[in-house]
């Protein structure tokens, strides 16, 4: 039982913080968002810090770091409100490639580690919502090559990526867990419609019309679940960073803004609200730790823990976001003020990889007789 960070983890945190302070102020972010939300340049800067290779095995030129390091980086990217497809490209994509033939790994992983290649999972389909087994895109083999027919939507940095990792159905009905293959598809093989997102980044819809694809694995559902759980844990950590900073901004505002001749911080109704906000932040942080520390567990335990964490973080993100806007009053609703951007990022986070209700359903389905952290 130990919740302290090692010195190495602390210096990793410091390194990301220093980069944010020097290179990623609110003005830069705001300008990037207004210009359409391109994130590749920012991702390249993170790569220069070595962060794109964080989860890539050392044998492929990465740092081979674990969930706690990923959590530390994600918290800091959240705190800095950094727009980059970090979770998708640096944390989820490498694990999806772990099942690929060694030639495919050798082709992609070193370039992903260095940041030269940006590869993102393309998971979403029109009717799938958060069900990973709901895959309508189909894959057919012709000799050694595969072709994909279908489409994916809301792919993070989809138009900036060099390739996508695409789940496609090889066999079975549309919602079977069996028969889902994972493929790597070069950007040039698909048709792209790209657009800015609510939280200042960029995403794309892909049309795949017989697109050429390289096979990662023919039976990818379990790996897909694992990658998504890794992504959720990282998002939980990002949310903690976001919330922590948003609360700090709000506290500062409460201590300076005066109405009725007194600071906002002097009114008990508002003091109790910030106490409740602090509660949600600390519960969220506790469950973010829980999610990351359970990633190495056997699949069922990992699944349950990650969904439990996501239910908590979903509640925390929404409460902290909404209340911090409310505590600011009118200024909190403006585009020029930083708080609204934190709120929007927190809100959009919940809508990717499963919202609170979806994961409550998972927790409910996976509940057992015993209860608690060690159940």
């Amino acid at each position: 039982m130990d919740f302290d960070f090692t010195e190495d983890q602390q210096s990793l945190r410091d390194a990301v913080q220093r980069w944010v302070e020097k290179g990623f102020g609110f003005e830069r972010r705001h300008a990037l968002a207004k210009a359409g939300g391109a994130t590749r340049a920012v991702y390249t800067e993170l790569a220069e810090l070595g962060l794109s290779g964080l989860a890539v095995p050392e044998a492929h030129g990465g740092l081979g770091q674990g969930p706690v390091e990923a959590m530390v980086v994600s918290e800091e990217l959240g705190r800095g409100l950094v727009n980059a497809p970090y979770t998708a490209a640096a944390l989820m994509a490498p694990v999806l490639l772990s099942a690929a033939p060694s030639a495919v790994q050798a082709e992609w992983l070193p370039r992903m580690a260095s940041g030269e290649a940006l590869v993102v999972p393309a998971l979403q389909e029109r009717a799938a919502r958060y069900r990973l087994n709901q895959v309508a895109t189909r894959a057919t083999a012709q000799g050694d090559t595969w072709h994909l027919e279908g489409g994916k939507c809301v792919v993070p940095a989809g138009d900036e990526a060099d390739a996508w990792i695409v789940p496609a159905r090889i066999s079975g009905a549309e919602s079977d867990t069996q028969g889902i293959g994972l493929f790597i598809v070069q950007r040039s093989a698909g048709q792209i419609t790209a657009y800015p997102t609510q939280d200042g980044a960029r995403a794309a819809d892909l049309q795949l019309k017989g697109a050429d694809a390289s096979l990662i694995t023919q039976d990818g559902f379990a790996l897909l679940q694992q990658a998504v759980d890794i992504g959720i844990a990282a998002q939980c950590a990002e949310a903690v960073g976001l919330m922590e900073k948003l609360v700090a901004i709000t506290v500062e505002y409460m201590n300076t803004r005066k109405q009725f001749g007194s600071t906002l911080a002097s009114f008990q109704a508002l003091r109790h609200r910030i106490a409740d906000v602090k509660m949600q932040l600390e519960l969220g942080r506790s469950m973010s730790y829980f999610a990351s520390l359970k990633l190495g567990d056997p699949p069922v335990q990992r699944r349950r823990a990650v969904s439990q964490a996501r239910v908590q973080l979903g509640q925390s993100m929404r409460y902290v976001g909404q209340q911090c806007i409310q505590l600011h009053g009118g200024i909190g609703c403006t585009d020029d003020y930083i708080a609204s951007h934190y709120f929007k990022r927190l809100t959009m986070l919940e809508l990717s990889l499963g919202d609170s209700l979806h994961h409550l359903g998972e927790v409910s389905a996976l509940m057992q007789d015993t209860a608690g952290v060690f159940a």
Partner: protein
Amino acid sequence: MDLNFTAEELAFRQEIRQWVAASLPPDISHKVRHALRLSRDDLQRWAKILGKKGWLGWGWPQQFGGPGWNAIQKHLFEEECALACAPRVVPFGPVMVAPVIMAFGNAEQQKRFLPGIASGEVWWSQGYSEPNSGSDLASVKCRAERRGDTYLVNGQKTWTTLGQYGEWIFCLVRTSSEGKPQMGISFLLIDMKSPGVSVRPIVLMDGEPEVNEVFFDNVEVPAENLIGEENKGWTYAKHLLSHERTNIADVNRAKRELERLKRMAKAEGVWSDARFRDQIALLEVDVVALEMMVLRVLSAEKSGKQSLDVAGLLKIRGSEIQQRYTELMMLAAGPLATPFVFEAMEAGWQGNLVSPPELMATASTYFNFRKTTIYGGSNEVQRNIVSQTVLGA
């Protein structure tokens, strides 16, 4: 970072588990498991069993005869006791007054009072609240006037839990009315058999006389029963409350009761109702999050590397969860929670109602547990304290 207990900690847990299994009388754990009424004898029997083993003061350092366990070990001990359905140790002696006597009492007082607390022989009560001093505890008026070698105590305490069994009571008394209200309070130990002490039970909404009013009418208390310095009692009381709050979160009992709620929901046919089951799932998330928060505090305490100022949060969350599981149990029982049969709460009751005692008890417990967000510093007072930390003013 590591979520796992060490091999030594797991071995320690195993040792505790085996001892509790062998030592906890089954008639007592039966009552706890089914939420039946515990008598004074039940509570004291278990306290003395713990006392004989040297574990009634499980949080005590070795120099005062305790086991000298670290934060994690204390937690594991509490967890094993809770999961085995041991009664909650009545905290007033071993958990509340003893740490104050250790920290601020003199050697004579330590020698005189601690052994009786450690063995479970002496029943202690708490004399804090007064009719006009609830959340505003610093306004206490119960007066202690120094007359040579004695204090003359006049006034009233209230909400004294299980005070009907009390042999000694620790009180916050007013010894000065000068300066800020906090400045004139003293911490006094009073023998409840002294002439002039009278106890009157207060029946709570579940029908149980769980708390009492305690009256002091010209009670003479030897001055040697004063803890520390006169007028410094508020500092000592705050020390005590900081011990009370982690204890009050009681996440171990919450885990046990959540498991009971699941069994009840299955037996009553609501487990298969997605609307009901989702409520249990939400509570489960709340319980895991509280447990993680508790574990973070314990780990910080053990390593000393970070300080976590979340005692107020633990009290708020712990008490809300306690209320929620009693509420869901009552809802699981549904109409069968309606009968109010006082004697059915006794073990061995032979009635022929359709409602088993365990289901009837759910409503009583729900009513009783409204106290949890009120006592130990109401949750609103806790929010005041938390906001002070967050806002820095």
